[in-house]
């Protein structure tokens, strides 16, 4: 492989390999067309009629995108609020989203699916491109692609050879360093290896400890090997190890009168750490009349979250959540090779994942006194003044162990039929998914009623059991387009599917209630107006799949003059939409509930214009997502906006490149970049009484390039806009996370 010479101009020809049209790249890279990877479904996407937002390497660098959350707004109606920790990746697309458990988008990195949402927020490192496919992709990709698919491709040793390194420093004591080597051993073998390390003190301080709250450090290694065995057979192997450790959860209590959030102020340790291993091998085999592609991958995730669940200086309770997950995935696609009117694709897919989770909740002094004993003694103190129930332990642990194996198998077919200027598409996927939950929860405490008992009595509460889920789904899609040359009009109708699951996070709450009941039963006391009415476990432990029916109508215009735009209207009916709620009472557990029915409609538009050294681009999304039917038994939310999803996303940017004449002293090139992103309005609750108004973030960078060096000054939220990224209500207290303030830094890069 050879880099095309001259001012870092590398031609990016990837359509034959990855099924993409060439990007209007700033740095262009040429790739041998015989390579192949298991990119998505073996390149079929060049035919598929799906709105795709493509973010290339140059845009990622100009916007200083370091993780998936940085792509919020880069595609219309695509929003990932930055809150909590790296474990938190709540993706919203077109008003559909999920805060916990199954995501609404599928994430693929070099063809390897990230089935666990906990892994979504990883450090970007030599990422070559990100494609965001909007709208349900379930007919090809199956589960949890109800909102779309994000496909990330890393830099390939066949695309680039040389050494890349960078070091950066910014406010918040943020530091980054990375280095990688891309080599092409011969025409058939390419190898790359890279490593990075990032750290930061963060931007929030805990008023309780006066320590940095959202500090971060993480690193990783990626090895990639691409082998063209013959003209007809090639392999691509990607191996990644990542580790991170951080503080987190900078949630500040809200003064409900002034609606102002105070600084985070809590006493228990909170943070997150994660170790991941990802390995995937994809292949491409050219047969006489067909092309066979496939991928097999394995992922291991070992993470641990500590959380002060009450987020106050008081000692209520804290949570530790340890998870170990193994995932194996395989996908094989056979597609037609010849360029006939009728092209088709047949695929088979399967996965198995095994989650082993240990999530002990420690009840502490204030939690025992104010949540458990206060309720228990409320009635007794009226009857027997001066008498009370006591619990011997200063702290006690509610242990929760879960083992969740999940498996899935699927068969799918897509056909494309071209007739004149028309292109028709029809696809169908049969998806079968099953899972089993084995739970074993327990607590052991000693209690005493001062009036009648002289010694503490032991209460052992156990909650053991099994649950099973099985979903068999048929996921169709039809689409058509009419291509006039510059204009392409297209329309599609598709069904999306998001798997159901288990409310494991509610178990500590369930057990706490069970423990109260056991203690009262042992005491022979029956509360007449109990705040501890027991959960019906069968009702709350599982939630059902979510479905949507998506209709789209759009137009794409592209010209040779550098002006491109697309405009799209969508209308989605979503049934059994999964929403996260905090259960009533003094509860801190979260649970997923199927919210009934919602409708989400809106428009999306993208525009780009290239003129000489100037590039302008913009993306706009508007979504009106409301409940058609949602009655939680206490309130009817019909007509209300779906919370947490923004009504609008805006992204607009400009890049201007100044090319210098050959001069030893001046830079070869100066790239000036500015962009603005906007989000909102975002409602925080189902009653739509609390919200974040539309806000904008101004970002920019200036980079000076003198081959082979680049010096970049970058800034984010340059105007220090004041906004919130997350709200929740817990134990009657409101909490907000404020958005990050002004961030800026300097980065030095070298590409040899």
């Amino acid at each position, binding site marked *: 492989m050879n880099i095309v010479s001259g001012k870092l101009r590398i031609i990016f020809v990837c359509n034959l390999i990855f099924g993409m049209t060439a990007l209007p790249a700033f740095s262009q890279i040429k790739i041998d067309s015989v390579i192949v990877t298991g990119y998505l479904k073996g390149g079929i996407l060049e035919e598929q009629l799906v709105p795709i937002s493509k973010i290339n390497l140059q845009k990622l660098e100009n916007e200083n995108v370091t993780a998936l959350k940085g792509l919020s707004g880069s595609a219309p109606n695509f929003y990932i609020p930055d809150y909590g920790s790296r474990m938190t990746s709540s993706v919203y697309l077109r008003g559909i989203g999920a805060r916990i458990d199954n995501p609404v988008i599928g994430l693929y990195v070099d063809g390897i699916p990230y089935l666990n949402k906990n892994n979504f927020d990883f450090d970007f490192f030599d990422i070559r491109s990100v494609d965001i496919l909007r709208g349900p992709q379930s007919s090809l990709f199956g589960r949890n692609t109800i909102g779309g698919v994000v496909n990330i491709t890393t830099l390939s040793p066949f695309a680039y050879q040389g050494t890349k390194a960078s070091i950066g420093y910014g406010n918040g004591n943020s530091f980054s360093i990375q280095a990688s080597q891309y080599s092409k051993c011969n025409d058939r073998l390419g190898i790359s290896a890279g490593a990075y390390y990032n750290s930061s003190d963060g931007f929030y301080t805990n008023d309780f400890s006066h320590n940095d709250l959202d500090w971060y450090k993480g690193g990783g290694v990626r090895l990639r090997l691409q082998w063209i065995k013959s003209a007809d057979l090639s392999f691509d192997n990607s191996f990644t190890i990542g580790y991170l450790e951080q503080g987190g959860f900078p949630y500040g209590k809200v003064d409900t009168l002034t609606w102002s959030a105070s600084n985070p102020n809590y006493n228990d340790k909170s943070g997150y750490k994660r170790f991941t291993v990802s390995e995937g091998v994809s292949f491409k085999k050219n047969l006489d009349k067909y092309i066979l592609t496939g991928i097999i991958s394995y992922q291991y995730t070992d993470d641990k979250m500590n959380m002060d669940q009450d987020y106050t200086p008081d000692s209520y309770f804290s949570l530790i959540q340890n998870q170990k997950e193994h995932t194996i995935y395989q996908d094989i696609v056979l597609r037609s090779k010849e360029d006939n009117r009728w092209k088709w694709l047949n695929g088979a897919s399967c996965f198995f994942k095994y989650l082993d989770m240990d999530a002990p909740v420690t009840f502490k002094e204030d939690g025992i006194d104010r949540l458990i004993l206060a309720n228990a003694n409320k*009635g*007794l103190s*009226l009857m027997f003044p001066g008498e009370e129930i006591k619990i011997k332990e200063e702290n006690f642990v509610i242990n929760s162990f879960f083992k969740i194996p999940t498996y899935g198998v699927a068969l799918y077919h897509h056909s494309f039929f071209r007739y004149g200027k028309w292109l028709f598409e029809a696809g169908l996927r049969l998806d079968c998914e099953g899972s089993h939950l084995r739970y074993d929860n327990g607590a052991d405490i000693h209690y005493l*009623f001062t009036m*009648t*008992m002289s010694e503490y009595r032991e209460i052992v509460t156990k909650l053991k059991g099994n649950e099973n889920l099985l979903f068999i789904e048929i996921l169709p899609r039809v689409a058509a387009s009419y291509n006039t040359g510059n204009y392409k009009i297209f329309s599609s109708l598709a069904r999306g599917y998001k798997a159901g699951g288990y409310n494991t996070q509610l178990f500590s709450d369930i057990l706490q209630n069970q423990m109260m009941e056991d203690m009262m039963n042992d005491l*022979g*006391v029956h509360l007449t107006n109990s705040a501890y009415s027991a959960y019906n476990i069968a009702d709350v432990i599982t939630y059902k799949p979510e479905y949507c029916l998506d209709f789209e109508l759009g137009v794409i215009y592209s010209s040779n003059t550098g002006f491109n735009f697309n405009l799209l209207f969508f209308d989605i009916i979503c049934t059994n939409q999964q929403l996260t709620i905090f259960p009533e009472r003094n509860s801190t557990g979260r649970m997923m509930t199927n919210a009934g029915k919602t409708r989400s409609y809106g428009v999306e538009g993208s525009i780009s214009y290239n003129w000489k050294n100037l590039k302008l681009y913009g993306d706009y999304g508007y979504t009106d997502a409301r409940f058609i039917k949602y009655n939680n038994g206490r309130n009817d939310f019909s007509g209300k906006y779906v919370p947490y999803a923004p009504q609008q996303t805006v992204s607009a940017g400009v890049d201007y490149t100044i090319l210098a004449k050959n001069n030893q002293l001046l830079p070869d090139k100066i790239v000036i970049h500015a962009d603005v992103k906007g989000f909102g309005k975002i409602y925080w609750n189902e009653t739509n009484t609390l919200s974040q108004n539309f806000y904008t973030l101004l970002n920019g960078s200036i980079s000076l390039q003198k081959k082979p060096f680049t010096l970049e000054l970058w800034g984010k939220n340059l105007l220090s806009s004041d906004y919130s990224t997350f709200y929740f209500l817990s134990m009657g207290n409101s909490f907000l996370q404020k958005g990050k303030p002004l961030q800026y830094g300097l980065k030095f890069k070298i590409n040899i």
Partner: protein
Amino acid sequence: MKTFKTIKFSVIIAFAVVSFFASSCEKDDNEQIVITQDITFSGRMTVDQLDGTNYTVNGVQIKIEPATSGNILTIEMLQVSFSPKMPVKLDMKIQEVMYYSSSKKIIISGNNIIPIAMGGEFPAYTITNLSGEIENGSITLSMMCGNYPLTYSGTLQL
């Protein structure tokens, strides 16, 4: 040799009740009825509130638990409240209650018994002047619970 006598149950008591009660109560050689297993009644409890009013609760269950030896039983009042002001319901046990039986009914009596509730003794509500009888599948009780007169009447539960 045993003599067999028929216990005359009220016509409103079903044959099943007869069978159950017969299985729960056996007659010994002296023609006395001996309670051999737990039996439960449901009925009405009335507590004089000492302010000119009575507090009456329907559907109150009491369980009669025989001791392993002797004519002693325990009366357990399940989920009861003794005043409209009580925010909780209690299970209360009256232990060491004496009983004797004739061929027709069981006579219950007791005095100065400290009830057990909420994990221990409740001397403030010492039971005095306890009397009652079980006949034809029905039970009647009267007692002083502390200073509060209490009466109960119920029927056998299957």
